């Protein structure tokens, strides 16, 4: 089952396409990270997926084919917007009351137990909670709806490291205990490495990379060798090149079994390095993009 599926999805604001020709299928049971520079279309894509925005072109479904924004889709989806907003003048208890009455399904005992564990005082106004506690409150309200899909827009960007860890621990626990699928956008690449097992890279409103992290990492290698020979690989699927006077680093699409040219060394790469390499090559540059024909079994690269 695909937890989010988009086909030719586009959203235009005035004369600007915020998202364009977005086609992807995120399977259920993953933590899918949506990564890209500012203005790449991350928030637009998430808003379309949860039904807060209407597509200009194409369509998007969630939870295995339910139209985004339909009553059935909304029942199974929970969304925490950027900066985890709550009503600052309401207490945590008021927020619980409000959320319970605005939703068809709300697990009050779960919410109360979780807030108790987190040590969030029910009678304190949300505006007087710490940033980390506010984020936990917003997340708890979302999880108490017992969603099958949890969508988080930049959930930890504003949090300190401890609050960030505690927030993600709560998300991961919900995933382990209830099998919630998670789609989140983030700038914090280092945090993604521990959490994300599916990557969607957006650039200038288009999907640049999508696939399971394990598959993507297994199908990319960093080759290090003499700069003079770097151009010999112009017809190979090179993603990104860093040239020094004598030594060059090529990020190529290759597996551990692919032969390494003499006088070159091949290294496996991490998620952060892979992401950065693609972010630095957002469009058609001096170098050819990944070859279209070369597709790894679990990943897909489009340009």
């Amino acid at each position, binding site marked *: 089952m695909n937890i989010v599926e988009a086909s030719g999805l586009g959203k235009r604001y005035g004369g600007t396409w915020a998202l364009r020709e977005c086609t992807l299928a995120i399977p259920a*049971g993953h933590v899918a990270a949506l990564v890209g520079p500012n203005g790449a279309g991350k928030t637009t894509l998430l808003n379309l997926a949860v039904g807060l925005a209407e597509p200009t072109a194409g369509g998007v479904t969630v939870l295995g084919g339910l139209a985004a924004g339909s009553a059935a889709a909304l029942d199974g989806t929970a969304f925490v917007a950027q900066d985890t907003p709550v009503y600052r003048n309401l207490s945590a208890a008021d927020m619980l009351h409000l959320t319970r009455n605005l939703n068809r399904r709300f697990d009050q005992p779960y919410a109360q137990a979780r807030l108790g564990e987190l040590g969030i005082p029910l009678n304190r106004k949300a505006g007087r909670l710490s940033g980390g506690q506010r984020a936990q409150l917003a997340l708890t309200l979302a999880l108490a709806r017992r969603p099958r899909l949890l969508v988080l827009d930049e959930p930890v960007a504003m949090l300190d490291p401890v609050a960030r860890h*505690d927030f993600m621990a709560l998300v991961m626990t919900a995933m382990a205990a209830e099998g919630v699928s998670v789609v989140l956008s983030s700038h914090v690449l280092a945090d993604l490495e521990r959490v*994300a097992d599916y990557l969607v890279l957006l650039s200038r409103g288009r999907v640049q990379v999508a696939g399971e992290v394990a598959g993507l990492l297994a199908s990319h290698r960093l080759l290090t060798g003499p700069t003079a020979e770097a151009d010999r690989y112009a017809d190979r699927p090179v993603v990104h090149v860093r040239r020094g006077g004598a030594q060059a680093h090529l990020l190529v699409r290759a597996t551990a079994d692919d032969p390494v040219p003499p006088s070159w060394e091949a290294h496996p790469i991490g998620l952060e390095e892979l992401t950065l390499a693609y972010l630095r090559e957002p469009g058609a540059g001096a170098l050819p993009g990944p070859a279209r024909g070369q597709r790894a079994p679990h990943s897909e690269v489009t340009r």
Partner: protein
Amino acid sequence: MYSGQHLRVSDAEREAVTDRLAEHFAAGRLGQAEFDDRVERAISARTRADLSGLLAGLPGTGTPAGPELPRGGGSAPGSPIDFRLDAASGVPTYLQLVHQVEHALRLGYLKPGDQLPKVRDVVASLAINPNTVLKAYKELEVKGLTAGRPGQGTFIQATLGQVALPELAGLHKALLGWLGTADAAGLDEDGMVALFTSALRDFYERRGGAGTRRGAASGNTEGVA
């Protein structure tokens, strides 16, 4: 308690008894020698009569495959070990978990019958993807070191190095002496590692290729790669 004492036992029955013995051993109700002896007898048991005495004198002997196993010793029914992560190591997260279990087995922190931390608890304490923990536990199961019990968790079922702690301490001390000599001879850390690795390879080659265990040596090379 067993009817039909002359009936032949199945592997599953033998396993149920060794599992129970491992539980009691982990809980400190059996000494090492007694445990080894009884496991040996369980494995070679042919009839129910052979098996029936092996759990004698131990609590809960009426239910060889009971779902709730009482665990003595620890305060909470948890695992003897706790995982940590080194973000700077460059080793994939799931592999770090695998290495830590192997390490704990080798040093005797984990014994057959011990439970690994529950996936939920690992996820909650490290804030990592549950799929990562599952992948690590699956890898350990494939290596034959653990077994999953539906609804209960993952349990250790094999040992790695059977060297006792005092002996390990002696070996550690001898190695420190060697390191001192190597240092005095002007070898730096990388040089020592290289020399040790090459000597290790020679040692197992001389023993004949089949002797190479997937123990410390392979774990280390994975970590370095």
